[in-house]
């Protein structure tokens, strides 16, 4: 049985970074959706269930924490892997994100394009193992 390629949602308000992540993930062959804030991300998740979400914390309109509260990953989307992807290493916010169902925290500044792909592969392998692939 072929491994399932994950669908990735990137929630990032910085235009240049949003575009970069989309290019990297699309070039690597992943079906990629992008949103510029939590509200847009919620809208996308109504029609598409992503496997992995890269979630920025500080965003206008709806920030990452507000998105997690509304999206309720623990209760409603337990199979979706959420990576907090922020340049603010604020322990309190990161702890809150974990409590709300985030799986990982990655400081954006330390993730090169290859490392971004590796995170997706690792999380995807975990999911595939979970379904016996």
């Amino acid at each position, binding site marked *: 049985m072929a491994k399932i390629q994950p669908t990735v949602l990137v929630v990032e308000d910085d235009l240049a970074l949003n575009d*970069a*992540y989309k290019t990297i993930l699309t070039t690597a062959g992943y079906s990629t959706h992008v949103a510029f804030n939590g509200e847009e991300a919620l809208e996308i998740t109504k029609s598409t269930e992503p496997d992995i979400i890269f979630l920025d914390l500080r965003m206008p309109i709806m920030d990452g924490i507000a998105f997690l509260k509304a999206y309720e990953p623990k209760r409603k989307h337990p199979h979706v892997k959420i990576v907090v992807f922020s340049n603010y290493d604020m322990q309190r916010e990161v702890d809150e994100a974990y409590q709300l169902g985030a799986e990982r925290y990655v400081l954006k*500044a330390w993730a090169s394009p290859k490392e971004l792909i590796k995170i997706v592969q690792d999380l995807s392998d975990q999911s595939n193992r979970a379904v016996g692939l």
Partner: protein
Amino acid sequence: MQNTSSNQISVLLVDDDEEDYIIIERTFRQIPESAFVLEWCSSFDQAKQHIISHDYDIYLLDYQLGEHTGLELLQFAEPQKRAEPFILLTGAGDREIEKRSMKLAAADYLVKGTFTADLLSRTLYYSLGRKQIEEQRLNHLIELNRTKDEFISLASHQLRTPATGVKQYVGMVLEGFVGNISEAQRSVLTKAYESNERQLRIVSDLLKVAQVDAGKVKLQKTKSDIVPLVIDIIKEQQQTYLDRQQKVTFTHTDDYLIATIDKEKIRMVIENLLDNASKYSDIGKAIKIAISGDSDTVVIEVIDSGVGIGTDDQGKLFEKFSRIHNPLSTLVGGTGLGLYWVKKIIDLHKGSITVVSEEKMGTTFTIHLPRSD
């Protein structure tokens, strides 16, 4: 405050001589429409308790307090850290005592037997007023410092985003996401990428230092075994050592070396020291890390045979923005903040860090960490 209404000013006289108290109390009564409420304490130890509890608005301390002195009480009270003024009562001509009382941050002094009700009243009001101004200045400085810390934090975070953008776009080209490039192009872009990485490291170090300076670093201590921690760090950094053909040897006297530490912070400390050992050693040189311990302390030694540090420079090694010039420093391009942060973290653990080094021979950093909290 001692049972005074809001417009009353409570004063404690600390004096072991009742006659003195009677004279001073009489002088207080001569102050017209006085807001001062005087109380008397003849015991040195009881006075200390009142000082600890901040019971009074003003303290008048006699110099002679039986086997003790008012200067001892001043030393105990540390008036420079308190809002209440302390005034010393001295004998006539005690210039030396007056000077010492000023050094110990007394607000003023009065010569016993010579001051009138008017002078007493003015001295008390002036001391209170000066303390209030000091307090305002202090609050202003605290506010300025907080603003500075917030600015560094905000600016650093803001700087990270564009630098992260550069990392992604240059990284995409270097890692083949947008087609092939020539070796010459790769060489130029690699320099741009590394330069940007350095900027990201500076921002990160600035943030760490701003947080530790602002007292925002709270240790999350747990009982941790340092042996697997070091094994893990060496494993993670293996590629760096391989690239530089450096061999890292790890020795430990015990199978387990447990201490109550903030594991993540100590991990970063060890990473920092090992990283320095590698960067400031030539290709092919050996690096050692050794851990030992007794019942109270765990000792971590990071030993390199690198460029070493001259005796004159060793003293400023743990200072902020200290850059030591050596044959590899230009190449390494450190921030001068790493070892400052390391020392702060070790200090927070109530441990110590020392350095022994010889130019061209190598350096040993030794950390002593208390095992218990």
